[in-house]
C-alpha cells in the first residue's frame, strides 16, 4: 500500500500563506496530475510529499504512516526533476546506481538492478557516458531510470518534460505512462501543460492559489468544469466565458440559461458553430478577426456586434470558405452550454 494522503495541510513562508487546509487522497497505484498556473503551489505540494519542504500544519500520510517529520531518504520516494538533476561528475551507470550505493546495497544486487533498468529503458549503450554527453531525451530517460531502480513507494515528477522539444515530449509522455502502468506505482505528476495533464492522469487536481479547484478524471474536468477557473484552464483554446447578453443583448437566447441574468456562460470553441445551423440556435453574426489553420482543424477568432471576443473550433475544410474580415453567422448547441454563478464562479447546472 502506498497511498498518499494530505489532511488539512498548510504551508507558510513567514507570514505568507501558500497552502491552507489542503486535503487530497492519492490512491495506491494511481497516476495523479497536479495542474495549474505558475504560483498555484503545485510544486510546493509535490515537494512536501518529497520531504524537501517542511509542512507547517496538518498531516501528510504515506502508506498510512505520518510522514511530516521523515527525511526525504526515509520516505522511499523517487523524484524526477525538471532539470533532470543528474550528477554531472558521474557516468550514467553511477547515476543509476547512486541511490543503491549510498544505501550500502551489495554490488551484485546493484549490478543486476542496473541491468534491469537499462533493459527496461534501453540505456545499454549509454552506461559509460557522462550526463553532458547525453541528449535531452536520453538524460530524461536516465533520470527515469534513477527513479525506478530503488522500487520506491511513489514516483514524483516535477514538470519533467518542459525542457524537451515537442516531438520528444510526446514520446516521453508515452514512455512515462507505459512505465507507470507496468509498475503500478503511485505517481504524482506536476505540470502546467494541460495536454500532459489530460493525457497522462487517472485523475487531475486543478490547483489555484494553493487550493484544489476541482478533482476528477480528465473527462469530468473537460465536460463538467466545477467553476470558471477550471472551465478557463482546461481546454485549448480556452472556453468562451460570457456575461449574459454578450451575444445578442436583451433578445439573447442564452439569457434564459443564465439564472436571472446573473450567471456566466461557458461555450467550448467546438460548440460554437460557424456558418452552420445543424440543429443549433442562431446567435447572430460576427466578424472574423483571425484564422489559425492547423490543418486538421481551424481556430476562428471572432468579434460580434457587441464587441464580444469569441473563439470557434471547426473542421479543416472551413478554411477554404471563410476569410479574415468576413462576417459569418454563429450558432450554438444549448445542450453543450455551461453556466456559472457570477459572484463565486461555481457551476450552476
Amino acid at each position, binding site marked *: 500500500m502506498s497511498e498518499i494522503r494530505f489532511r488539512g495541510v498548510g504551508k507558510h513562508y513567514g507570514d505568507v500563506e501558500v497552502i491552507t487546509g489542503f486535503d487530497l487522497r492519492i490512491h495506491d497505484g494511481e497516476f495523479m496530475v497536479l495542474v495549474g498556473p505558475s504560483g498555484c503551489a503545485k510544486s510546493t505540494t509535490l515537494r512536501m510529499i*518529497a*520531504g*524537501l519542504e517542511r509542512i507547517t500544519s496538518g498531516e501528510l500520510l504515506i502508506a498510512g504512516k505520518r510522514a511530516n517529520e521523515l*527525511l*526525504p*531518504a526515509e520516505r522511499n*520516494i*523517487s*523524484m524526477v*526533476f*525538471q*532539470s533532470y*538533476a*543528474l*550528477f*554531472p*561528475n558521474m557516468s550514467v551507470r553511477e547515476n543509476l546506481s*547512486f*541511490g543503491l550505493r*549510498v*544505501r550500502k546495497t551489495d554490488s551484485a544486487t546493484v549490478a543486476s538492478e542496473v541491468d534491469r533498468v537499462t533493459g527496461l529503458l534501453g540505456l545499454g549503450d549509454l552506461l559509460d557516458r557522462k550526463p553532458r554527453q547525453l541528449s535531452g531525451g536520453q538524460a530524461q530517460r536516465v533520470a527515469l531510470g*534513477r527513479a525506478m531502480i*530503488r522500487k520506491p513507494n511513489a514516483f514524483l515528477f516535477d514538470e519533467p518534460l518542459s525542457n524537451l522539444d515537442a516531438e520528444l515530449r510526446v514520446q516521453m509522455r508515452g514512455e512515462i505512462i507505459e512505465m507507470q502502468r507496468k509498475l503500478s506505482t503511485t505517481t504524482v505528476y506536476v505540470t502546467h501543460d494541460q495536454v500532459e495533464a489530460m493525457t497522462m492522469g487517472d485523475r487531475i487536481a486543478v490547483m489555484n492559489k494553493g487550493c484544489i479547484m476541482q478533482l476528477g478524471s480528465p473527462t469530468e474536468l473537460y465536460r463538467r468544469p466545477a467553476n470558471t477557473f477550471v472551465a478557463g484552464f482546461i481546454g485549448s483554446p480556452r472556453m468562451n466565458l460570457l456575461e449574459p447578453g454578450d451575444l445578442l443583448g436583451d433578445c439573447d437566447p442564452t439569457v434564459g440559461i443564465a439564472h436571472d441574468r446573473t450567471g456566466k456562460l461557458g461555450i467550448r470553441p467546438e460548440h460554437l458553430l460557424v456558418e452552420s445551423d445543424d440543429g443549433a440556435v442562431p446567435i447572430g453574426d460576427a466578424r472574423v478577426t483571425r484564422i489559425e489553420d492547423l490543418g486538421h482543424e481551424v481556430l476562428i477568432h471572432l468579434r460580434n456586434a457587441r464587441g464580444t471576443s469569441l473563439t470557434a473550433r471547426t473542421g479543416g475544410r472551413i478554411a477554404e470558405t471563410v476569410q479574415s474580415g468576413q462576417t459569418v453567422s454563429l450558432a450554438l448547441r444549448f445542450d453543450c452550454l455551461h453556466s456559472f454563478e457570477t459572484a463565486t464562479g461555481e457551476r450552476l447546472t
Partner: protein
Amino acid sequence: MSAAAAVSRRYRLTARLSQAWAYAFTGAMVLFSLFPVYWVFATSLKTKRDGLANPPLWIFDPTQANYLKLWSHDTFKFTFLNSIIVTGIGVALSLSIAIPAAYVIVRMKMRGRRFFGAWLILAYMLPEFLFVLPMFSLYQWTGLYDTHAGLALMYQVHVLPLSIWLLSSFFGEIDFAIDEAARMEGATHWQILTKIYVPCSLPGVAATAILNAIWIWNELAIAIGLTFSRAQTVTLGVTSFRGYAALDWGAMTAASIIAIVPMLLFAVVAQKHIVKGLTLGAVKG
C-alpha cells in the same frame, strides 16, 4: 574602389591599430612588472664586484657561485623545507575547513548568513600584524610559538575567509536540484559534499588551494612575529644573508629566485585550473 570597400578597409585598419595599441600597452606592463624579477635574477648571476658596479653592468660574465653557496647554506635549506611543511599543513587545513563551511553557507538556511559573509571579507582585509601582536603571548603560553602547526594555524586567519568566499561561489553554481536529488536518493550531507560538490567543483578547489599556497609561501609578517628558529620559513631564510655590517646581495638574490621557483612552477602547471576555477560560472552555458 567602391565606397563600401573603402569603408571596410578603413574599418580593418582601425581594428588593427587598436589591436596593436593593446599589444604594445600589455607588453609595456609585462616588462614593467617583470623588470624587478629580471634585476634580482641578473644580480644572482653576478660576482660581488659586478653586482655592486655603478653604473650597473648590463653585460657581464654570469657565475653560478651564488647558487652553489646556497647549497651549503643550512639555514636556507632548512627554511625552504619549513615552508614546504607549513604550506602543506596550511593548505590542507584551509581546505578541510573551508569546503564544509562553504557548503553550509550555500546550501543551508542559516541565520546571520549575510553577517558571516561581511565578516569574511573584513577578516580578509585586515593586516596580518593585527593578529600577530595579541597572538604572540598566547602562542608562547600554548606552545604553538615557533612551530609549523602554529604558523599554519595563524595563516588560516587570512586564507580561510578567501577560501570560504571562493568555494561558496563555486558551490553556488551547482544546481540546487542536484542536491535535492541526492537527498531523495538517500545521501547524507557529507556524501553530497564529497561525492558531488567537491568533484563537480574540482577546478575551483584546485584554484583555491593554489592561491592559498602562494599566499602562505610568500608570507613574511606573521612568520617574523611567530617564529624564531625551528619554524622559520623561506621568506625569512632569504633575509638570513643580511649580516650586521654587510649584505650578501648575490646569495640573497639567488635565494629569492630559488624561493619563487616552486610557486612559479606550481602556477604554470596549474594555470589551466586557476583560470578555469576563477572563471567558473562567469559565462552561463
